[in-house]
């Protein structure tokens, strides 16, 4: 087998891998990133709203089981009401993310202590704050300072327009006296894209890391992490684009393949010493998968609201129901997000499903009764860790390299079901105040598993967790997990900002303690 050597190896180049690659790139060390997906031309993923409507059903489909690209691996979700969304390429899922960039609440780090549910983190919001600030600066986050739901967040870019639909909704929130705030969005403006583009991990971190000497190897899938008899990770075996196996020796390994891909690699790295999977002395690997179950409520209006325009992910949000209130009958809570309504092509397909549109004489009449006239709201529920929600290897379904896929076993808890139902009722109440002619609601929505959390939780010892507070594997001291698999709780907000802040914090820790890990 061919052998290669690097000092630091980063597995995965998505949100977390990219942030650490940049943060470590100024060290005088050889840093290599292995990415199972290809390097994609920026023009292809810098989609404006027009071609996004088309690509989201094709090569940029969020569902790997539908995309079925060589870079994807099968994810069996037969035993889950929510399917998994991801993207495998240089830049990872940030290539298809909507750019909604809120931070976790301070309370999200202490749910066990505050509400006796879930698990506490080993650090808090304020430990992470400087990394949130750094990441916001790097990404370019727009928003408005002063949200009473958060500690003060400064240096934001001007907030995005909430649009006509946002205006209508804001008035309804005001009538009910409910919290709302313009959203935090990662949108950068350029000469070419006047309305702004979503900055992906490629533009924000990877291009800068490459300039500093980081090597990125696309189409290279890590199959196994190899170990020495002294429980030190010696490197990985990866498969290149020609399916050739190569051993890459490394002094430090950072694993950032998402809460599905990370346990997959660790399970596939099992050995006599680690029969249940690498780093799995606790038996916690793969468990506590959290997915942010989503409820969908859509108000239909008699008038055109241009609701198909505006922020890609979220124009405004409400944290009115975020904290626990006993009388609601569930613990923790959810956020309400104003989404963008679909464009003309997606509107057509939606209407066609319900036989409400046909080509011909009434084509536009039918289309314009829906297009731009609906306000979609998402209820994003905080998911709590449960050992019965887990991922394991699926030996029946293998990827293009012959590596087993992943099987997801996931159920909604009673707490989440109550939360979802409460959210749907509150949104209906909200739409009553807006004058919507009718409201459609359902949940959980199947294709919404894009916030993947848990599966390699952090904790104080190898009896109850996979990693310590710095993502360092209890069983393997030179192996760090830097993605959202280490999160002990999920919060109720988009995870991207926290994923990158945590990654920056861990890589800072590695920088400060480098001599402990690098064999000189």
């Amino acid at each position, binding site marked *: 087998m061919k052998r290669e050597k690097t000092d630091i190896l980063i597995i995965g180049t998505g949100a977390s891998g990219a942030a650490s690659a940049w943060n470590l790139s100024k060290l005088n060390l050889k840093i290599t990133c292995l990415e199972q997906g290809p390097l994609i031309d920026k023009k292809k993923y810098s989609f404006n709203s027009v071609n996004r*409507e088309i690509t989201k059903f094709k090569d940029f489909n969020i569902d790997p089981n539908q995309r079925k690209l060589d870079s994807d691996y099968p994810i069996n979700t037969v035993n889950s009401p929510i399917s998994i969304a991801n993207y495998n390429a240089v830049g990872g899922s940030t290539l298809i993310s909507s750019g909604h960039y809120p931070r976790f609440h301070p309370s999200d780090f202490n749910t066990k202590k505050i509400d006796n549910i879930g698990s506490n983190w080993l650090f808090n919001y304020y430990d992470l704050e400087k990394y949130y600030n750094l990441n916001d600066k790097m990404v370019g986050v727009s928003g408005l300072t002063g949200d009473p739901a958060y*500690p003060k967040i400064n240096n934001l870019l001007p907030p995005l*327009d909430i649009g006509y639909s946002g205006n209508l909704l804001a008035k309804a929130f005001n009538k009910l006296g409910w*919290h709302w705030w313009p959203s935090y969005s990662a949108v950068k403006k350029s000469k070419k894209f006047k309305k702004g583009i979503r900055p992906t991990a490629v533009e924000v971190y990877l291009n800068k890391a490459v300039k500093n000497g980081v090597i990125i190897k696309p189409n290279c899938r890590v199959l196994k992490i190899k170990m020495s008899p002294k429980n030190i990770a010696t490197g990985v075996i990866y498969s290149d684009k020609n399916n050739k196996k190569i051993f890459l020796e490394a002094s430090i390994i950072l694993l950032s393949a998402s809460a599905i891909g990370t346990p997959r690699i660790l399970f596939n790295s099992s050995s006599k010493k680690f029969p249940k999977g690498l780093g799995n002395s606790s038996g916690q690997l793969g468990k506590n998968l959290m997915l942010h179950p989503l409820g969908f409520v859509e108000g239909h209006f008699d008038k*055109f609201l241009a609701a198909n325009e505006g922020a890609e992910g979220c124009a405004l949000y409400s944290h009115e129901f975020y*904290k626990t209130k006993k009388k609601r009958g569930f613990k923790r809570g959810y956020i309400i997000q104003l989404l963008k309504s679909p464009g003309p092509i997606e509107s057509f397909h939606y209407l066609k499903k319900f036989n409400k549109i046909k*080509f*011909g004489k009434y084509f*536009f009449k039918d289309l314009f009764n829906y297009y731009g006239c609906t306000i979609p709201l998402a209820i994003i529920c905080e998911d709590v860790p449960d050992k019965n929600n887990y991922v394991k290897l699926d030996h029946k379904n293998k990827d293009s390299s012959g590596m087993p896929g992943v099987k997801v076993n996931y159920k909604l808890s009673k707490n989440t079901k109550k939360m979802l139902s409460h959210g749907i009722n509150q949104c209906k109440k909200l739409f009553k105040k807006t004058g919507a002619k009718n409201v459609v609601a359902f949940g959980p929505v199947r294709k919404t598993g894009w916030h993947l959390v848990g599966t390699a939780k952090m904790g104080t010892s190898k009896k109850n967790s996979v990693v310590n507070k710095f993502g360092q594997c209890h069983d393997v001291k030179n192996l760090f997990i830097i993605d959202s698999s280490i999160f002990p709780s999920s919060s109720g907000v988009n995870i991207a900002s926290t994923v990158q802040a945590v990654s920056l914090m861990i890589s800072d820790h590695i920088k400060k303690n480098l001599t402990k890990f690098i064999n000189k």
Partner: protein
Amino acid sequence: MSLKLNKYLLMKNNLKLILNTMIPGDDYMPCFTKAVKVEAIIKKLKKNKFLNDLKKKQINLNEKENWDNCVKILGSDILEVYFTSNSVIKSLNLRKKNYLRNVKKENMIKLLEKVKYTKKIFRK
């Protein structure tokens, strides 16, 4: 005029008729062939038997079977091409401007000031 060219023109005209029946246009929106050159669809369907049939005769769109067949073959292609064409994007923008001409938006900051947050205690 050669027979081949004649057939091509017949097919093109028949296809135009079908496309404009499927997407006929309205006060703001152009009919299909005003927005998209019919050649773009011919190119997409290059080897499809459907085009050969159009070289022979006009299709009676009043017959359900014929209509369903046209929708099946052309449906998704024409949607994509039509709604991504520049003239349709312009028409949608014009339509938007006209519809929103008299709709007033309230200032976001003023709207935010109207919420009585003092009653709320958010967990920090």
